[in-house]
C-alpha cells in the first residue's frame, strides 16, 4: 500500500469512529436522564459528527476519486467501515453510554495530543482542534463515572457491568495496522501501541477513585469481529440517502 492509500485508510478509521459514535449519541437526543445531560450528549454528538465531516472530507481529497464526505458516510457498506467496534455497541442503558464515552474520550485525548504534532500540517491543525473538544468530553464522562460509581448500589452495579461488557472492545485501540508503518515512521501518525500505558493509567485512576474495578482483559479481545449492531445502525443512518439518492431539502 502506498502512503496516499495508507493515509486514506487511516483517515477513514478516524472519521468512521467519529461518525458512528456521533450517530449513537444522536440516538440519545431527548432520552437523557435530565435536560442538562440531554444537551450535553447532543453537544457530544455534534462534535463527533463535525470531526467525522472534516476527516472524511480530507479522506476524500486524499483518495482523489471524487468521493465527498457524504458519499463516504452514506454510500459504503458495513464491511467497508473501519470504526472501532467499541463505538457501534448499543446504548443499552445510561451506564453503557457513559462507559463507552469515557473509554473513547481518554483514548481520543491521547491520540489527538500526539496527532496534533503530526508532520502533516493539515492533520495537525485538525487534531489540535479535536483535542480541545475531547478534553471537555473526557472531563464530563469522567465526572459521570465517578457519580455513578459512588452513587447507589444500583448505579455502581450497572456501571461495573457496562465496563465489563465494553472492555474487550478497548484492545483494538492499541493495535497498529501494518499498512500504516510508513506513516508512523515518517511522523504523520502516532503509533497506537504507544498510547496504551497512559490510557491505562488514566482509566484506572478514575475507576479506582469511583470505587470501580478494572475489568480483566482476555487474549481473545484482539480478534473480535464487527458486530451485527453496525449493520443495524447503518440501515437507519443511510436509509434516506440510499432510498432517495441526491435528495435535497
Amino acid at each position, binding site marked *: 500500500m502506498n502512503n496516499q492509500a495508507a493515509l486514506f485508510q487511516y483517515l477513514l478509521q478516524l472519521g468512521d469512529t467519529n461518525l458512528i459514535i456521533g450517530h449513537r449519541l444522536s440516538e440519545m437526543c431527548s432520552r437523557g436522564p435530565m435536560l*442538562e*445531560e440531554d*444537551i*450535553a450528549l447532543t*453537544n*457530544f454528538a*455534534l*462534535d*463527533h*459528527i*463535525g*470531526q467525522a*465531516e*472534516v476527516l472524511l472530507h480530507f479522506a476524500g481529497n486524499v483518495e482523489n476519486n471524487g468521493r465527498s464526505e457524504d458519499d463516504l458516510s452514506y454510500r459504503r457498506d458495513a464491511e467497508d467501515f473501519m470504526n472501532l467496534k467499541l463505538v457501534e455497541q448499543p446504548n443499552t442503558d445510561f451506564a453503557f453510554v457513559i462507559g463507552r464515552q469515557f473509554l473513547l474520550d481518554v483514548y481520543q*485525548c*491521547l491520540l489527538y*495530543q500526539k496527532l496534533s504534532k503530526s508532520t502533516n*500540517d*493539515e492533520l*495537525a*491543525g*485538525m487534531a*489540535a*482542534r*479535536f*483535542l*480541545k*473538544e*475531547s*478534553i*471537555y468530553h*473526557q*472531563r*464530563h464522562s*469522567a465526572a459521570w463515572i465517578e457519580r455513578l460509581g459512588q452513587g447507589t448500589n444500583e448505579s455502581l452495579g450497572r456501571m461495573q457491568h457496562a465496563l465489563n461488557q465494553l472492555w474487550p472492545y478497548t484492545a483494538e485501540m492499541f493495535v497498529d495496522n501494518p499498512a500504516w508503518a510508513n506513516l508512523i515512521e515518517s511522523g504523520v501518525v502516532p503509533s497506537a501501541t504507544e498510547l496504551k500505558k497512559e490510557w491505562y493509567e*488514566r482509566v484506572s485512576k478514575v475507576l479506582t477513585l469511583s470505587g470501580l474495578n478494572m475489568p480483566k482483559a482476555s487474549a481473545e479481545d484482539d480478534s473480535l469481529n464487527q458486530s451485527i449492531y453496525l449493520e443495524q445502525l447503518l440501515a437507519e443512518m443511510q436509509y434516506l440517502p440510499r432510498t432517495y439518492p441526491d435528495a435535497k431539502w
Partner: protein
Amino acid sequence: MMTKELTAVEELVWERLSMIPDPEIPVITIVELGVVRDVQWDGETLKIFITPTYTGCPAMQLFVAEIQAAMHDQGFDKLEVIHVYSPSWTTDWLSVEAKEKLRKYGIAPPVLKTSEMNPFEEVGNIPCPRCGSENTNLKSQFGATACKSLHTCNDCHEPFEYFKHF
C-alpha cells in the same frame, strides 16, 4: 489574521466584515471572534478565509451566508469563502476588549490560555460576570451552544454562562 499592508479595498472588506455580529453572541463580531483569517484577491475573485470555532458548530453555515450577503451588498459578486483548519481556532485570539464585552453582556470570558489546558486536570472556579465572586459552581460543561458551559454564583445566586477557553 495576517499582518500586511492593506489596500483601500481590502480595508473596506475588513471594515464590512467587522460589522457582522456573531449570531449567538451579538456583542462581538466574527472578526473579533477570530473566525475571519485572511482576505485575498485572486484576479477578480475575492477570497475570504475563515476557520470554524468548534468542528460541528452549526453557526458556521450562518457565518458563510452573512459574509456572502455583506459582500454582495458591497458589490463584490465574485466571492469564495474558504475554510482553513490550521492554525486551529482558539479563544486566545479574543482581545481584552472583546472579553470585556462578553463580561458586560453577562457571559464570563475565557480565563485560561489554551496552552495551559491539561487533558486530565480540573478547571478552577470561574468568576461570576455579574458580581466577580469566585464562589461559583459548575452546573454543566455543555450549554445552549457548544462554546459555553453553565455555572451558578453562590454569592449573587444568579446562573451564568462561561465562554469556555478553547
